[in-house]
C-alpha cells in the first residue's frame, strides 16, 4: 500500500533549509520576548534536572537512589521529563561551552529546534504525497502563523508536542506501508508521551483511521490489508519510553503515574475572557477553539484549507461507499483531518477543563497547513497558473500572495504574540472591542524593560504582577533589566507596580490605587493602541 513518493536528497535539503532558516529567525528575535510565566517554572525544573544529570556523572551510586531522584524531580512533577531534560542538557552545554549569547536562549533552544524540525517534517510529509510547491507552502503557512511563531520561541512543551504528535502520525502513516517503521512509531509516540499529555489521544485517532481504511480495503476486496501492528508498537514501546525518560516514575511508578493522569483529568480551570465573558469554570463555549483559530490564523490559510478539503473530498468519502475492486490507499487526508479536528474538538467539549489559549490545540495546525497546501495546489492546477507564459513564477507568486497575510501579521505580532488578532477579528483593537483574551503569562513585561531601566536609573524595585520572579531574574541575567532593579514581593513597598491587563486582574489594578492613593498610571504600554500593561509609580519613590 505504498501510495507515497520517495523523498529525495533534494527534499531533505529543502527541509533542512526550512529548519535552519526558522531556527535562525527564532534565535534572532528571541531577546524581544521576556520569559513567560510557565517558562520560568520549566527553567527551574530544568536546573533541578541538570543537577541530577551532573550527579549521575559525579556520583552515580547515589544518583539513582530514591532520595536523589525525588529531590531533583519532585518540582513540576505534573509534566513529563523529555523537554525538561532537553532544556537541562542545552543549559549544561551552554555552561560548559558558552554556546549561546544568553542564558534564556540556552533553555529555549530545544523548543526552537523542535519548531525547525517540525517545518522539515511538514515539508517531508507534504512532499511525500503532493507536489513540492505544496509541501513548501504547508511548511511556510505553519511557520507564519502568529501564535505558532510566538510559541516557537519558548522553553515550553507546546511546539515540541506539536512536533512529536506530527512525527508520531507520520510514523504511523509510514508503518501502514512499511513494517520497518514499527520501532520508530513506538519511539516517537513514547517521546510524545514524554513531552505532554496532548499525545494521549493519538491511539484513538489512529484507531478510527485504521478502521476506516480496513473497511475500505475489505469492501474493495483487497487481500493485503493494513496490519494493526502499529497498536502494540505504540502501547508497548510508548509507555516504556515515557518511564525510561522520566526518573520521577522510577520509584512508586503506579501511584505517580496515576497522580500524573489524575492531575490533568482534573486540571484547574484558568480564567479566560472570550467574547466579553470571563469564564472561570466549565463549560467554555464549544466555539472557542474554532473562533480563536479564525481570529489568529490568517484567512488565506484557513480558506485554502477548506478548499483543500473540498478538493480532496473523494479521498474523504466514507468507507461504506467504497466499490468492489476500487483502488484504495492510506487515506492520508482522513488522517490529517482527524489529527486536525481531534485537538479542537477535545478543547470544545463542555467537560474539558478551561484552558482557552491557542497553545492547547497547536497540534492541529501542522495538519491545517497541510490541508491548506492541497487547497493551494488545487487553485494552481485549476487556474493552470504553471502554464502561463510557460513559466512557474505565477505559481510561486500566488504562493507568496497567500502567505503574505500570515507573514505580515506574524511580523506585526512580535513581541506581543498572545495579544495579536488577525484582521478577521478587527485586529488588536477589534478583539478588545469583542472582549477577547488579551494576554497571559506576563511575558509582555519584556516590552517595558527599556522604559523601566530608564525610569529607575539608580535602581529600585518593581512589583511584577503576572511576571514571576523567576522570569524577572532571567531578564536580569539576560541583561534586559539592570541587576539593581529588583522584583518586589510587596506592592506598597515597590517603586513601580505593573498591572497586566486581563479582566480578572482588575482587582490588582484597584489594589495599586489603594496602595499609592492614585488611579493614574505613570505609563500605559499599548499594542496597536490597546493597553497591555499599566505602570503605577509609588509617590514616595517619585519624590526621591
Amino acid at each position, binding site marked *: 500500500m505504498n501510495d507515497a513518493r520517495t523523498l529525495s536528497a533534494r527534499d531533505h535539503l529543502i527541509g533542512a533549509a526550512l529548519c535552519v532558516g526558522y531556527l535562525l529567525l527564532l534565535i534572532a528575535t528571541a531577546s524581544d520576548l521576556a520569559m513567560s510565566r510557565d517558562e520560568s517554572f520549566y527553567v527551574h525544573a530544568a536546573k533541578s534536572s541538570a543537577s541530577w544529570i551532573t550527579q549521575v556523572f559525579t556520583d552515580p551510586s547515589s544518583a539513582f537512589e530514591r532520595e536523589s531522584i525525588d529531590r531533583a524531580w519532585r518540582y513540576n512533577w505534573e509534566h513529563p521529563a523529555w523537554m525538561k531534560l532537553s532544556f537541562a542538557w542545552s543549559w549544561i552545554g551552554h555552561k560548559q561551552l558558552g554556546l549561546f549569547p544568553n542564558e534564556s536562549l540556552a533553555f529555549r533552544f530545544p523548543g526552537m529546534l523542535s519548531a525547525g524540525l517540525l517545518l522539515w517534517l511538514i515539508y517531508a510529509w507534504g512532499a511525500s504525497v503532493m507536489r513540492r510547491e505544496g509541501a513548501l507552502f504547508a511548511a511556510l503557512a505553519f511557520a507564519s502563523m502568529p501564535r505558532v511563531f510566538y510559541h516557537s520561541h519558548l522553553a515550553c512543551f507546546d511546539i515540541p508536542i506539536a512536533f512529536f504528535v506530527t512525527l508520531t502520525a507520520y510514523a504511523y502513516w509510514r508503518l501502514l506501508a512499511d513494517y520497518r517503521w514499527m520501532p520508530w512509531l513506538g519511539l516517537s509516540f513514547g517521546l510524545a508521551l514524554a513531552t505532554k499529555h496532548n499525545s494521549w489521544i493519538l491511539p484513538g485517532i489512529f484507531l478510527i483511521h485504521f478502521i476506516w481504511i480496513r473497511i475500505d480495503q475489505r469492501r474493495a476486496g483487497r487481500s493485503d490489508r493494513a496490519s494493526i501492528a502499529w497498536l502494540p508498537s505504540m502501547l508497548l514501546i510508548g509507555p516504556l519510553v515515557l518511564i525510561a525518560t522520566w526518573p520521577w516514575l522510577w520509584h512508586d511508578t503506579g501511584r505517580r503515574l496515576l497522580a500524573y493522569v489524575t492531575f490533568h483529568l482534573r486540571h484547574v480551570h484558568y480564567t479566560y475572557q472570550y467574547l466579553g465573558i470571563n469564564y472561570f469554570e466549565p463549560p467554555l463555549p464549544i466555539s472557542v477553539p474554532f473562533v480563536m483559530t479564525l481570529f489568529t490564523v490568517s484567512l488565506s490559510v484557513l480558506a485554502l484549507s477548506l478548499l483543500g478539503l473540498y478538493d480532496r473530498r473523494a479521498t474523504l468519502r466514507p468507507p461504506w461507499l467504497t466499490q468492489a475492486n476500487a483502488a484504495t490507499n492510506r487515506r492520508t487526508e482522513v488522517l490529517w483531518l482527524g489529527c486536525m479536528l481531534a485537538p479542537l474538538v477535545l478543547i470544545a467539549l463542555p467537560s474539558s477543563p478551561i484552558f482557552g489559549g491557542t497553545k492547547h490545540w497547536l497540534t492541529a495546525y501542522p495538519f491545517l497547513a497541510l490541508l491548506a497546501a492541497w487547497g493551494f495546489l488545487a487553485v494552481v492546477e485549476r487556474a493552470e497558473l504553471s502554464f502561463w507564459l510557460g513559466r512557474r513564477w505565477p505559481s510561486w507568486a500566488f504562493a507568496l500572495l497567500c502567505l503574505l497575510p500570515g507573514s505580515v501579521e506574524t511580523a506585526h505580532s512580535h513581541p506581543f504574540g498572545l495579544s495579536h488578532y488577525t484582521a478577521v477579528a478587527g485586529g488588536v483593537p477589534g478583539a478588545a472591542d469583542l472582549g477577547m483574551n488579551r494576554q497571559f503569562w506576563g511575558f509582555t513585561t519584556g516590552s517595558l524593560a527599556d522604559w523601566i531601566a530608564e525610569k529607575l536609573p539608580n535602581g529600585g524595585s518593581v512589583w511584577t504582577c*503576572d511576571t514571576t520572579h523567576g522570569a524577572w531574574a532571567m531578564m536580569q541575567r539576560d541583561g534586559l533589566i539592570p541587576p539593581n532593579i529588583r522584583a518586589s514581593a510587596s506592592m506598597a513597598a515597590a517603586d513601580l507596580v505593573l498591572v497586566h491587563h486581563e479582566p480578572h486582574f482588575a482587582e490588582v489594578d484597584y489594589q495599586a490605587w489603594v496602595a499609592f492613593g492614585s488611579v493614574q498610571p505613570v505609563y500605559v504600554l499599548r499594542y*496597536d493602541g490597546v493597553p497591555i500593561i499599566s505602570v503605577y509609580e509609588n509617590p514616595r519613590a517619585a519624590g526621591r
Partner: protein
Amino acid sequence: MIRAATPSDESWEAAAAFVRARYRSSDRIVAAPAWVDPIVRSQLGDLLSLRMAAPPDPAGIERVWELSIRGASSRDEPAVLEQDFDGVRVRLWSTPSDELIYDFVDEIAAAEVELVDANGSRICPWRAAQQARGGLETGPMTPRERFVCDARRPWLWVGATVLSDLELQARRCIWQHPAGPGPVRVTFADVPLGDRILVRGGIDYQAERRRVHAPVTLRVWINERLAAELVHQDGDGWAGLEIDTREAGSEPATVRFETTADNPDAGLFCWSASSVRGRKPMVDAERRLDGATHE
C-alpha cells in the same frame, strides 16, 4: 488594515487638555469602550478622587465626561457638549444627583470599631500597619492605616479600600469582614443626616463568583434604633438599600454598622454609605449613573 485605527497620543492629549480645562471636582470621567480606561486615567487620573474613580453610589456626581473612541458610547442620551479630537470624542452630560453631605468611607478614621464575641466587646485600635503584598486572588488592598481587630486573623481589619465587585467594577468602600455570629461594629458619631442614607455592599469578585459562601448580614443602627438590614447573598453583586432619614430629626446622629455571618469564611465583605440630600428622585439619578459607568 492590521493597524486598525486607534487615536494617536496627540489626540488623547488634546482631548484630555480640553476636559482638564473644564473639570470640576464633582465631575466623573468615564471611558468608552471600557478597555481604554487605563489610557484615560493616565491622562486625567490625577483629577480623580478614589470616590469618583470607584463610585459606590451616584451621590455627588453632577456631570459626567466621556472620552470615547471607535464610535463606542457609554450612554444614549444627547450630550450637552461634544467635540472630536481626531478620533477621540469628548462628550459631557449634566447629571444632577443627590447632594452628598457625609461620605462614611471618607470618615472611617473618625469612627469607633469594636469586635464583639462571647468574651464581650473589645475596641479595635486605629494604627498604621503593614500593607498586604497584593496580587491575584488576595482581595482588596489593606490601607496603610486601619482598625486592626485581631493580629492572629489578618483579615479582621476595618478601613477604606477599593473592592472589585462581581462585575469587576471598582467600588470604594469600607472593608468589614464578619468575624462570625458576633458582630464587628463600626460606629460613627455626629453624622449629619439628610433625606436618606444610601447603603451598598458587596463581596470580592474572586470569592463571590463561585457562589458557595455563606451570606453576610449588615445591620445599620441610627441612634440605637435598627434602621435597616442588608443580607448579602453570593450572586447579589454590588447591591444595597436606602434608609429614609427624614424623620430622624435635624440633629447629627450616631450611626452604627454591624457585620455578622454564621460562617465568616471568605466573607470578603465591603460596604459603603452616603448620607444624601435629594435634588431629584433617586431612581432617575441611579439610572444616569448606571449609564455612565457601564458600557
